[in-house]
């Protein structure tokens, strides 16, 4: 069974790009447009569990940091690797993200293969 990734971004094109890359790497992908939607989808996922979460930070309704904080309170997502999509102008966001439970980050803009390499740092191949 393929592994499941949850991709959270309000930008459709970014979400498509990340999803496409992940699908290419053998994941099945659940997409959400903001943190709240992501929490809902997470709860609805099989066993309330996904293998990997990739989330943008700046989003309407519920931002990425709030989402990560909330996701970490769910037993099923306690140890799930969570990667943040951040920008080079958001250096301090990395620390903020770590503080609420993010596992790592990838800096935008990135190429698909860079994303795959970062994922290898948080998820066994």
């Amino acid at each position, binding site marked *: 069974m393929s592994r499941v990734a949850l991709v959270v971004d309000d*930008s459709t*094109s970014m979400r498509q790009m990340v999803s496409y890359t992940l699908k290419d790497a053998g994941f099945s992908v659940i997409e959400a447009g903001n943190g709240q939607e992501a929490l809902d989808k997470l709860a609805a996922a099989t066993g309330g569990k996904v293998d990997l979460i990739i989330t943008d930070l700046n989003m309407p309704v519920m931002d990425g940091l709030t989402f990560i904080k909330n996701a970490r309170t769910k037993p099923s997502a306690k140890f799930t690797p*969570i990667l943040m999509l951040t920008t080079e*102008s958001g250096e301090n966001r990395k620390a903020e993200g*770590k503080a609420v439970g993010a596992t790592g*980050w990838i800096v935008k803009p990135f190429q*698909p293969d860079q994303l795959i390499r970062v994922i290898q740092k948080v998820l066994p191949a």
Partner: protein
Amino acid sequence: MSVDLSIFQQSFFQEATELLNDLETNLLHLEDQKEDRELLNTIFRCAHSIKGGSATFGFPEIAQFTHGLETLLDRVRDGKVPVTGELCRVLFQSLDQMRALLAQGMGQSNLVPDDTELTAHILALSECEPGGPTATSSPEQTSQDAKSSSVADKFLLHFAPGPDVMRTGGDPCLLLGQLLEIADVESVTRNDLGIPPLLEMDPEACYVAWDIQFQSSESRDVILEIFDFVSDESDLRLEMVTPIEDENPEIATAIPTGQPAAPADNISRPETTILRVPADKVDRLVNLVGELIITQSMLNEVTLDFEMDRKPRLLEAVAAMERASRELQERIMGIRLVQLKHAYARFPRLVRDLSAAVDKKIELITVGEETELDKTLIEGLGDPLTHLVRNAVDHGLEGPAERKAAGKPEHGTIKIISRYEGGNVIIEINDDGKGLDRDRILSKARERGLVSESEIPTDDAIYAFIFHPGFSTAKQVTNLSGRGVGMDIVRQAIQGMNGSISLSTNPGQGTSFRIRLPLTMAIMEGLSLRVGKEVYILPLTSIVESLRPSPSDLSLITGKHPVVSVRGEVLSVLALHEWFGIDGAITNPCEALLIIVENEGHKVALLVDELITQNQAVIKSLEANYRKVDGITGATILGDGRVALIIDVPGLLRGMNHERGLATRAA
């Protein structure tokens, strides 16, 4: 693995366009609500998303420009830069600049204004040092292909992950695994002295540390980068055991990562337009298709060994099929529907800019902008609506002084109301200005020979003159409107979409334009009728009534053209069999049927053999499959598989007037 990012460009374009529209809307609000934190956040997010997307999908110019803007907006959001009129102006300019850059990226235009001054202005406002980070300068260097030096250095790594490393989803083993890929390990010492007695141990915490001695040809930075996610919370020390003799590897490793894709001048862009459809709409379609397939198998089973006693089941299955296919049809049509607010998006800005230019105070109100309309129609509506709004600003509404003198509020109002009405969408553009000048239009019409001196048309007929080509009563040609091209183009555009436009006006109280459009162009409610052996479809919206005349109602004018008198109103009779050259049709109106159709207040009686039934016609383009035929909108396929042509009533009437006009003149 390599993924061609250009396949996401269409998505990005659409998204960026929407983001820019959102940005515009929010900037307009910002002028009124300078302290609204949430608004500032939203504005920042728009710019942020555009920057992220453009950098990723290969538009460094947009990313670079937006980066400066984002920095400014970030400072505004943090309250470090005040929201002033000047700031708003710069933000609007930036918005235009981004639009121009995006249009260039989409290959629509090459006219990008020079942004040196604007960029400088943005920098000045954000009091930011020039030469700060740019969006394109530093894609993160994670490359493993930077194996520059063949000389392996010896390292000693001490790695003691923080106790909470696993609580943030981290896995030290994975990191060590990554290290293995670039290192030849010589020795590993595991330090597990930190592991407490079992009873005190927190199973979710990490107590282990490692000292690893290894050789690697990678640079110190590349090695450390493996641990960058955990470096803050871990005790991480990397020492080089043998000092480097050559200090140059650092330079050698600084190979730039993949250049952002060059702006795609030479990439041929697909001409496809993308329709964004909410997922639940698609889900519902999938369900419906499922239902259809179930009914189909039901039908198969019923018809396999069909006996008359199974007829109820057959009927049941057919009914289910009909329900599912009708709903499927409606929902598929629904996919093409787009909210009118997309057509309205540009108006707040338009009204703001225009009213500033002519020194008027104008408020724009839109009602019912969630009304949905076919995407093609929404696109076609943009220009006509813009024209009407411009007209309202320029001609319709008065300046503050004049309004005050007339006892009206200084603020003029333009109200755009949209709503459903039957199978149509109605859009009204109302202003509370001075109304149309009946006498001036009439004298102008006389001047142009549209009305004779003696003739006094009805008010409605007079106002309708503004739709005549080249008709303008503007005393001065202004920058905005009044060049005499306009209302006729507006009407043509609306008619081209199978719609109609009418107006009503009250002197001193304002003018109201009313546009009526069919919900969708692809499906039409029609009445099928027979002429000889041919079947035609007549759009239901244009039919007034049908009747069988008595001989006394009929007469001929100019000895040639038949007319019919319907309750005192004399209407031309157009025999469809003559028009379309069909043999074997009933030629005597008293034995056949007259259908009265109307277009723009102009009525004609069509002579047909009989009416068959009312049905929904799926319009197939004739132009795409054959060529354009006057008087015919398109074709459709009837239930029995035959093709029926759909009559274009306005076209038919135009053709008839043209022909009879010529004939009369020739006679």
